[in-house]
């Protein structure tokens, strides 16, 4: 294993922040305790520009005063739209300093969605990253005229905009300095007045169904959540984290704001979306978070690149990975491994694992987390076996993404870990997971009835996930509770459970299974264009674009094989045998958030998909062998077109149920 240095942080550091505090106060505390330590870095103009805690505190103060000068006051909401830029994180703190509430929004949301949230949250102040966002917001303003102030960070191209209420962040800070001079005590007073139970942030749930809801989380709960993570992984100054996931997403808020302010480590923002991988390689974070999709993407690119390698290298790689699969995870868990194997592993580490981690930018990683969706066992094992301490946690926007996490040394592949400090779990009779504790939401913004639905009298939050808790207290999530259906055979049908198994194959990008109230399970498959494309090229199989590739008989065969393997799995699992996939078809287009088929967090909107592709579903169950379909698609630039194809329906290999005992 390469050097995994642990920052030796004074024990005072963690319990420094007394339980009832707020983010602005934590910031002030860091500015006092470690004024010159780097708080944030951003790769800008080719190098890593750094802000010390002191500088962050000062800029936040300037911004806050600037906002105040514009009349931003307690309980006002400040929308933030943009990529992960240090100054955007600062604006969030600025709002909180004034007892206001930051409302980060997804930057890739189209004007319509954005208008809804602006209206819903009654936003009058918004921080926008650049011209693109400003243009969008100006469009929104036509629906929502109360949007008074649009403050932009990057003035590029905005020089000649004369719309009212436009202001650059620079100008805001200038106003702030002036305002501060006139009302020197305003800032402190505002910070002091804030209470731990004030709402710290409103995060909009992507909402697999219905309109997004604004989740109100208090300083107290987010800080508690943050501290839980920080303590169990001993994070602190000297640690580096990469902030590259949407600010509007609860995970990023937990890692890049809550844990950052509790732990006092360093936030690193990439230079641009194209350079994330490279920037990650430079920084070499010690603490990393990514949804399974990211890890999957990385692994796919690894296998693709290795396939072009020279034979000898491929042989070496194969050998080493075999060894890693055998002993790697155990070594990481500190389980007993023979001296010889340890030696072998050392060698492998020198030749393959080490360099590989280096290429992935994971050489320095002490802790890496994944969550948001189930992660494939192979995928999970891969990272742990090459010495990346990848762990899972479990939570929702409503719980600050903080319910369960896997403790070092107690990592089970299938589970999402044990109840996190300060949280308690319960499984309802219908199998739904209920949680109570520090991180549970205060309320949905202006939605008492919605709040009532999920928060019961005892203060339990209904996660909507179906799961089981094993003897050691590890929680295992099976599916969305509401998605769990019953087949006519009476068997329980957990679509996501099956779909995830499918998605663990690099060739399969998305899958949608149907089976509720039916005799058999059938599936839509989305191939992974890159992986399958490569596969095709290596076989010298010519294809013209996605639609053509998806239709190739060879590809169908490939997919059929994957499905066969999944069916074999299912057959072996108790009560799942009946949910083996009978027939499938490979979709002619990628499911896409822009076509409302996926949520912004890329969860399948199964209801919507079912309606949209009704004909296909009917074809699947109607015993047809192929079906013509034409679909509308939205392109990046907003134009729309249609794609059409005739999809063939393929039966899959099924297996007799195996008794678990056998």
């Amino acid at each position, binding site marked *: 294993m390469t050097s995994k240095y642990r920052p030796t942080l004074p024990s005072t550091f963690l319990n420094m922040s007394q339980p009832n505090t707020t983010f602005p106060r934590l910031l002030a505390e860091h500015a006092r305790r470690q004024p010159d330590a780097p708080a944030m870095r951003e790769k800008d103009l080719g*190098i890593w520009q750094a802000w010390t805690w002191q500088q962050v505190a000062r800029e936040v103060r300037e911004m806050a005063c600037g906002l105040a000068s514009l009349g931003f006051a307690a309980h006002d909401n400040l929308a933030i739209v943009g990529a992960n830029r240090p100054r955007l994180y600062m604006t969030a703190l600025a709002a909180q300093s004034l007892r206001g509430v930051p409302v980060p929004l997804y930057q890739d949301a189209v004007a319509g969605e954005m208008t809804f949230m602006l209206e819903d949250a009654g936003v009058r102040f918004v921080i926008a990253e650049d011209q693109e966002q400003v243009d969008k917001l100006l469009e929104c303003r036509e629906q929502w005229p109360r949007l008074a102030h649009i403050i932009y960070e990057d003035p590029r191209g905005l020089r000649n905009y004369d719309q009212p209420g436009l202001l650059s962040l620079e100008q805001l800070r200038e106003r702030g300095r002036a305002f501060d001079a006139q009302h020197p005590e305003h800032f402190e007073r505002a910070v002091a007045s804030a209470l731990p139970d004030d709402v710290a942030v409103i995060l909009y749930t992507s909402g697999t169904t219905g309109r997004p809801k604004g989740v109100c989380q208090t300083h107290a709960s987010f800080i508690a959540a943050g501290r839980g993570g920080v303590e169990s992984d001993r994070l602190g100054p000297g640690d*580096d984290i990469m902030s590259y996931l949407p600010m509007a997403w609860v995970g990023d808020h937990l890692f890049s704001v809550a844990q950052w302010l509790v732990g006092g480590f360093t936030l690193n923002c990439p230079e641009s979306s194209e350079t994330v991988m490279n920037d990650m390689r*430079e920084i070499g974070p010690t603490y990393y978070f990514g949804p399974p999709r990211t890890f999957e993407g990385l692994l796919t690119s690894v296998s693709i690149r290795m396939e072009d390698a020279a034979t000898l290298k491929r042989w070496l790689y194969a050998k080493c990975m075999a060894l890693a699969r055998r002993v790697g995870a155990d070594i990481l868990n500190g389980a007993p491994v023979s001296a010889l194997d340890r030696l072998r592993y050392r060698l492998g580490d020198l030749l393959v694992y080490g360099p590989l981690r280096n290429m992935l930018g994971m050489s320095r990683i002490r802790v890496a987390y994944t969550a948001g969706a189930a992660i494939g066992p192979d995928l999970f094992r891969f990272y742990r076996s090459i010495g990346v301490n990848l762990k899972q946690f479990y939570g929702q926007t409503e719980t600050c993404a903080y319910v369960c996490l896997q403790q070092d040394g107690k990592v089970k592949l299938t589970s999402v870990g044990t109840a996190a400090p300060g949280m308690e779990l319960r499984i309802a009779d219908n199998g739904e997971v209920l949680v109570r504790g520090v991180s549970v939401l205060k309320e949905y913004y202006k939605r008492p009835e919605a709040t009532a639905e999920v928060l019961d009298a005892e203060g339990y939050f209904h996660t909507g996930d179906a799961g089981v808790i094993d003897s050691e207290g590890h929680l295992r999530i099976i599916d969305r509770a509401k998605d769990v259906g019953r087949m006519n055979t009476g068997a329980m049908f957990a679509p996501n459970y099956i779909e995830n198994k499918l998605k663990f194959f690099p060739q399969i990008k998305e899958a949608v299974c149907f089976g509720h109230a039916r005799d058999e399970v059938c599936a839509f498959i989305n191939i992974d264009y890159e992986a399958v494309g490569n596969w095709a090229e290596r076989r010298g199989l010519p294809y013209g674009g996605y639609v053509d590739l998806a239709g190739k008989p060879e590809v169908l065969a490939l997919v059929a094989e994957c499905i066969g393997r999944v069916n074999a799995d299912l057959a072996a699992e108790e009560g799942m045998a009946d949910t083996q996939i009978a027939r499938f078809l490979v979709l002619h287009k990628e499911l896409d958030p822009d076509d409302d088929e996926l949520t912004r967090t890329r969860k399948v909107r199964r209801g919507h998909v079912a309606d949209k592709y009704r004909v296909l579903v009917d074809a699947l169950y109607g015993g047809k062998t192929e079906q013509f379909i034409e679909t509308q698609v939205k392109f990046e630039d907003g134009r729309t077109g249609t794609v059409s194809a005739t999809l063939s329906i393929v039966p899959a290999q099924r297996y007799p149920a195996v008794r678990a005992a056998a």
Partner: protein
Amino acid sequence: MFYRENGQFKTSYRADLALFPVAQDRWAMLALAAVAFVAVPLLASDYSFRAIFIPFLILSLAAIGLNILVGYCGQISLGTGAFMAVGAYAAYNLQVRIDGMPLLLALIGGGLCAMVFGVLFGIPSLRIRGLYLAVATLAAQFFVDWFTNRVKWVTNDSSSGSVSVRALQMFGFEFSTPTQKYLLVLTLVVIFGLLARNLVRGAIGREWMAMRDMDVAAAVIGIRPVYAKLTAFAVSSFIVGVAGALWGFVHLGAWEPSAFGIDKSLQLLFMIIIGGLGSIAGSFFGAAFVVLLPLFLNYVPHWLGLAISTATASHLEHMIFGALIVFFLIVEPHGLARLWATGRQKLRLWPFPH
């Protein structure tokens, strides 16, 4: 494979523009330096100093000089031998005509004279391009050959036409043993190497390369051809001149004009082409190749236990040398430096192929 670049992020342009931005490279260079300055002096034999290390180093220096002109500025020169000669003879005259002239000053003086001479013969390059210029530079070669042969004053009226230098001393210290000479040369080469490196990665280096790659565009962005080309000639011939002086003083000790004939010019051109145009490191590779290969080739027969006349042997040696050059140009026209660079890149990307 040995690169671990995570966490080596740059927070300032100074760090980003450092000579060796990657830590692993820095260590490697340190190790190399340690070997060159400590291990070699302790272990190497006098013969190896005379036959390998000293000529290798001096030729590397000359190659660096030539590379600046040809590789970076794109001005082909076939007259390098002449510039070396000027350096050598100038240094010689400084030494014999001025008593107690410190070695270093003599060398530098030699370099400066070569520089003047170089600028003089560089002037045509402002009008003449490419192969025309290449051939034109032969004028310098033959002129100097003739000059050093015919003008007695140059050789301090030595009857034989050959000159021999006095003891190499500087500030009272005398470089007598091969080891001392080696260390002297090594130090100079390292210093000049670094200076050259700084030049080529700085503003002037960009001007040179701009002239080389696309002279019209260079002019349009305000680069003066006169300045760019003449500085290239000046710097190049200064370094070459110093190398020439070292060659005469340290390696040969006593020499005749033929020591700096056209063969030397061509030999140096070989070095930078085989080593790699436009690469300081390449200059070293090229020199190593040209110095070691012949040694190697005339050992081969012994190893194979073949008894062949020395004449035949030397012919064979020439033949193989020529053949190898063609071979190299075919397999890697960009020279050993390119091979090296690709190798390094592969190590950085390991285990990925690209």
